């Protein structure tokens, strides 16, 4: 099983990195609105089914992969 975890700064959380990227995109002539920078974490794991895999990855997120105070997560699972 493979899980892809998308971690984003939560709505309303200041993202200076996103603002810097936005400024550079505009300098290049792109007419962009808000830009937010997050991160992608791919995890391979053994799990009997999607439900147990999701539970495991949710625990990984709350214990390490994301900080729930400032970040939101989306989890995608792929059988492989």
């Amino acid at each position: 099983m493979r899980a892809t975890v998308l971690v984003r700064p939560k709505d309303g959380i200041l993202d200076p990195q996103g603002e810097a990227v936005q400024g550079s995109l505009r300098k290049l002539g792109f007419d962009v609105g808000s830009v937010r920078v997050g991160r992608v974490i791919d995890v391979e794991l053994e799990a009997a089914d999607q439900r147990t895999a999701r539970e495991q990855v949710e625990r990984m997120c709350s214990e390490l992969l994301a900080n729930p105070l400032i970040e939101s997560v989306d989890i995608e699972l792929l059988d492989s």
Partner: protein
Amino acid sequence: MTDRPVVAVVQFPGSNDDRDAAWALGALGADPVLVWHDEEELPAATGAVVLPGGFSYGDYLRCGAIASVAPAMDAVRRFAASGGPVLGICNGFQILCEARLLPGALRPNRQLEFLCEDAVVRVESADSLFTRRCLPGQELVLPVKHGEGAWHADEGQLVQLAARGQIVLRYTDDLNGSLGNVAGVVNEAGNVLGLMPHPEHAVDPLLGSADGGLLLAALVDAAAEYVLAAA
């Protein structure tokens, strides 16, 4: 035998203020002992713990996140739960927030710049274990050097923490986008402090300020009291 209280300074890969912290604590009457991050126990008779500044684990994932689950942190958690005084400086503050021993989280500086300068912080509460050698409202000059020092919590939580006296230090101006200009926070029990400025770099007037000595000497006092109470 020595009557100097043992203060454990935890070294993570990438810590770089560990030796300065140990030197400062030694100069202020403690017996500093460096503890490697994969140790599962603190030295016998530890009276206080310092998590030093630096870039533990290369700031991978989030500053302090990987260090917060290091084996030594389980020992630090037990020590804090027993009432032992714990001080996190800069990266140490980030680690304590990630370990959820302190409220809030640290985000990149508002101006996206690494700050390296002297900052002025005001003592908001002189009742804490760590600020009791200071006067309420006293302004301390302490160096800062960080890229991710903007403390974040929700507004309601800030009000609550301030009402309980947990916001012990604030910058006198908006240094880095920190909510409420917060520079240092203690936990509810009052025995864990995290702050972004570096008291260990301000214990000798030759280096510009000795104000950090007020905070660290209070930690050494607290370490001696903890050892005495545990004996």
